[in-house]
């Protein structure tokens, strides 16, 4: 009954897409309007926290290699931590804007984990390519949560922060366990899925 890895990627992509849409809407209407209803204020940090919790079963069940387990465990911890700081900021328990650096660490640790746990080169096959792309996308995009910490009212930082999740969702949806990338697949990768 364990889902194939590509299905897990697609399910997480769905969570990230919803997260991205919520953040994009918040960036468009402004934080004041977004937080007018309590449930909405907690919505995106709550989704992020839930995604962090859901990464634990991924760590436990997908034990392809030690590096996979470490990567998934690091994601789970850092995503829960980043989301928890955002929940604390929404609740008012945390006041300093520097707590927003929690999400910067999510981007950086996730990006590095993607890059480190992908053992194959870029053009080995599609999931290898996408893991490299996801890793670098997250590392480079860490500039957005960082800018959000320094200038909390920056519109560009908020939009970039939101769009990163949408891009991550798109890349995760493109992921296949074994499939060619740009018409290329390594003979070592195995038979491609349809």
């Amino acid at each position, binding site marked *: 009954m364990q889902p194939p890895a590509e299905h897990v990627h697609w399910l997480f992509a*769905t969570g990230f897409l*919803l997260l991205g849409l919520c953040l*994009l*809407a918040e960036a*468009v209407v402004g934080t004041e309007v977004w937080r007018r*209803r309590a449930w909405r204020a907690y919505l995106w940090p709550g989704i992020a926290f839930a995604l962090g919790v859901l990464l634990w079963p991924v760590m436990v069940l997908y034990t392809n290699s030690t590096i996979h387990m470490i990567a998934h465990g690091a994601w789970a911890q850092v995503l829960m931590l980043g989301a928890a700081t955002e929940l604390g900021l929404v609740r008012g328990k945390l006041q300093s804007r520097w707590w927003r650096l929690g999400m910067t660490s999510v981007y950086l640790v996730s990006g590095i984990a993607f890059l480190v746990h992908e053992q194959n080169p870029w053009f080995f096959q599609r999931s290898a390519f996408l893991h490299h792309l996801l890793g670098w996308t997250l590392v480079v995009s860490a500039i957005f949560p960082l800018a959000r910490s320094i200038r909390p009212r920056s519109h560009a930082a908020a939009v970039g922060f939101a769009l990163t999740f949408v891009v991550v969702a798109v890349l995760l*949806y493109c992921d296949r366990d074994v499939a060619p990338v740009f018409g290329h697949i390594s003979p070592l990768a195995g038979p491609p899925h349809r």
Partner: protein
Amino acid sequence: MNAELVTELEVRAHLTARARIVSALGPLTALAGIGWALLQPYRITLLHPRGETFWFLFVEPPLLVIAVGLFFHFVIAPGLLEDLEDERATPR
């Protein structure tokens, strides 16, 4: 007086633009899902099941994208648009 009116009209136009963007997010997402389904119909295994296992029938990526778009449009956007309208109505 005219300057005040112009400022008020500018604020209203800005709010309307924001409302339009929020209203469009859900449908655009759903539309992207529909476009994907049309481009890659084989990603929806429910259309032509050939003995696939449970997960291949349960997790259909284009349908998930459509579902996210519809959820945003029907659950999140209406309240947000109401609050945007309230913000416009509230005197500053």
